[in-house]
């Protein structure tokens, strides 16, 4: 499924681990990136995608990038917090205005360069940030329009103190659970709902068991395309420049594809019986404020947070 690249001609076929299927906007953007890269380098460089988590979950692929087993991987932003806690600042609730602003900020070396360099020690080179969707709350109980609607609802969150705390502030009970168990947990009532973007909501069929999808818009966590610094340093200057330019183009491509994919996923979920509704975003933003105050404490995180706020529309 995930293969591309130019077969025999390419001298450097970079192995890219990806945890979702080939139709995902990021995989599509990477496929296009590979074609352009190959054309621009006369077939010297191309990408070979290993989709569907075949090389392991994202945490494991980071380690493979570090050891040089694979060249590139797309990983969730929260995972880099394990290497440099300051990464947390860009994963906090209600930091961004829009996906466009998020991408502008996260791919601005002035703002992010220092933070990205902080993981070079760990053999991780951040090549670019991709938009990873807007996370919203969905529930089997009913629409979630304001924090009070989440009262005593158990909502699956990413397994970290920050996410549990965030859901508490939003009015619900944040419940970490392995993604593979969530469907049956909602179906049987162990959970009342979860929070994620429209693509995951539709792909995992959660629309079948938690049909109320509310636009709380609380999180916009980026995904990063990371490489082993060795791979990057192994390219000549010219290739690096070409690659950088194409990466920047692929960010826009991905943003565009993601928006289309969201529309498609939404339509499919509606067909499966899901109902989408707006929520009082300001109330939720206000409620999660204490989390931001408690997490943005170092000089670096303050500088980044301020820069992001300044760039809001």
């Amino acid at each position, binding site marked *: 499924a995930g293969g591309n690249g130019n077969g025999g001609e390419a001298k450097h076929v970079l192995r890219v681990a990806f945890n979702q299927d080939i139709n995902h906007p990021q995989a599509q953007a990477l496929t296009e990136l590979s074609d352009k890269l190959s054309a621009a380098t006369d077939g010297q460089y191309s990408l070979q995608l290993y989709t*569907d988590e075949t090389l392991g979950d994202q945490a494991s692929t980071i380690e493979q990038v570090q050891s040089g*087993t694979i060249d590139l991987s797309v990983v969730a932003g929260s995972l880099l917090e394990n290497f440099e806690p300051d990464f947390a600042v860009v994963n906090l609730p209600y930091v961004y205005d829009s996906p466009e602003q998020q991408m502008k900020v996260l791919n601005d070396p002035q703002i992010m360069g220092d933070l990205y360099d902080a993981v070079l020690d760990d053999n991780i080179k951040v090549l670019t940030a991709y938009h990873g969707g807007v996370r919203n709350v969905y529930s089997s109980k009913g629409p979630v329009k304001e924090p009070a609607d989440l009262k005593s609802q158990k909502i699956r969150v990413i397994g970290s103190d920050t996410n549990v705390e965030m859901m508490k502030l939003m009015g619900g009970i944040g419940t970490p659970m392995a993604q*593979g*168990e969530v469907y*049956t947990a909602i179906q049987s009532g162990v959970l009342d709902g979860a929070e994620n973007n429209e693509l995951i909501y539709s792909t995992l069929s959660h629309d079948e068991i938690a049909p109320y999808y509310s636009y709380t818009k609380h999180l916009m966590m980026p995904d990063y395309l990371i490489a082993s610094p060795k791979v990057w340093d192994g390219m000549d200057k010219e290739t690096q420049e070409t690659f950088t330019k194409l990466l920047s183009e692929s960010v826009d491509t991905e943003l565009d594809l993601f928006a289309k994919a969201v529309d498609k996923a939404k339509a499919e979920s509606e067909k499966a019986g899901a109902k989408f509704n707006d929520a009082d975003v300001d109330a939720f933003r206000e409620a999660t404020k204490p989390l931001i105050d408690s997490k943005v404490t170092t000089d670096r995180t303050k500088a980044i947070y301020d820069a992001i706020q300044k760039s809001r529309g």
Partner: protein
Amino acid sequence: MIDPLAITLVLVGGLIVLLAVGAPVSISIALPSAVAMFMILGVDNGAITSAQQMFRGANSFALLAIPFFVLAGVIMNNGGIAERLINFARVLVGRTPAPLTQTNVIANAIFGSVSGSAVATAAAVGSTMAPMQRREGYDRAFSAAANVASAPTGMLIPPSNTLIIYSLAAGGTSVGALFMAGYLPGILWAIACAAVVWVYARKHPELKGDPRPSFGVIFSTFVKALPSLGLIVVAIGGIVAGFFTPTEGAAIAVVYSLLLSFAYRSIHVRELPRILYDACRTSSIVIFLIAVSGIMGYVMAYARLPQLIADALFGWTDSKVVVLLIMMAILLVIGIPLDPTPAILIFVPIFLPIAISYGVDPVHFGIMMVFNLSIAVISPPSAPVLFVGAQVSEARLEPVIRHLMPFFIVLIGVLFIVVFVPEISLWLPQLLGLL
């Protein structure tokens, strides 16, 4: 450069040679996979990647159900809980020939449908049923084989994590439709096993059914079994009612059976370390096998062996029947060393688009794949279910494998029916408007 042929030879040849010299089955998978990894990545990176994949293979919350159910089984046996439960089941279904083995098959279908894990089912039900069957003169290898063969039923009968993983790999096929589609094939699986047991029992007149019990006997057995039935109410009921997940239910079952055993005074606190240790050893052997098969899955994916196999095999035909048969044959073989989860993640993206181009419904394809991989999880030489089944029955592997053969033949026959009669899978979801 990666030479796929050399890698295939190392994996297959290494496995055969190591098994022949009597190396542990896990090592017969692990060492050739590691060697293949060294060939691709060099020794340094190969060793570290093998280590990573091994750790990752074992590091899963769903696998936790295995040691818990093994432990619950050991406690229930020591505590007399199991015996009370089975006596009760027996007065209900005891008139068929080989009643204890039939009870095992039915219990596996019920228990497996809730736990969703073939290994956990073989462990929990088998460790309870095997000692009783042994005491009553049943052939231990045969009863182990029946337990192993019927253990995967719950991978098809919902809820099923395996089907959820398929849905994910297939890019969002409806889980609800898959769940409904799994019912009939799952029930067919259980019926197939019961039929094999029935034929066997006809040839072994000593395993005749019990006489019809009086109402008084039924009643007193039921009363005696009440606290033990509580275990089912608490563990299975708790999962169904949404108090906890199957993995958590396994831990709750441990606690409940322990408390009950203390109440019956049939287990002393002093015996606990031994009981814990027995369960730990049995489950470690299985987990180690699952962990090292992670290395093999990675090597195959990295070297793109599945794509190469598919390209080589599908090139020469455009018959839907032949293509499906080749797919089923590949999955049956590949599923033996691989766990269903990596097998699904690796093969769905390759096979599903081809199947769809021949007009196969993705829901139907998911069911045939999971049915197929369910046969693979009980296939020797490398099957966690087989290991655990033989362990809890205290039977040696070779005779169990011999007795498994008739089950295989019948189940492969049922697989054919499931593959070529889509209605078996699709009728129920269509009836409910899910397709």
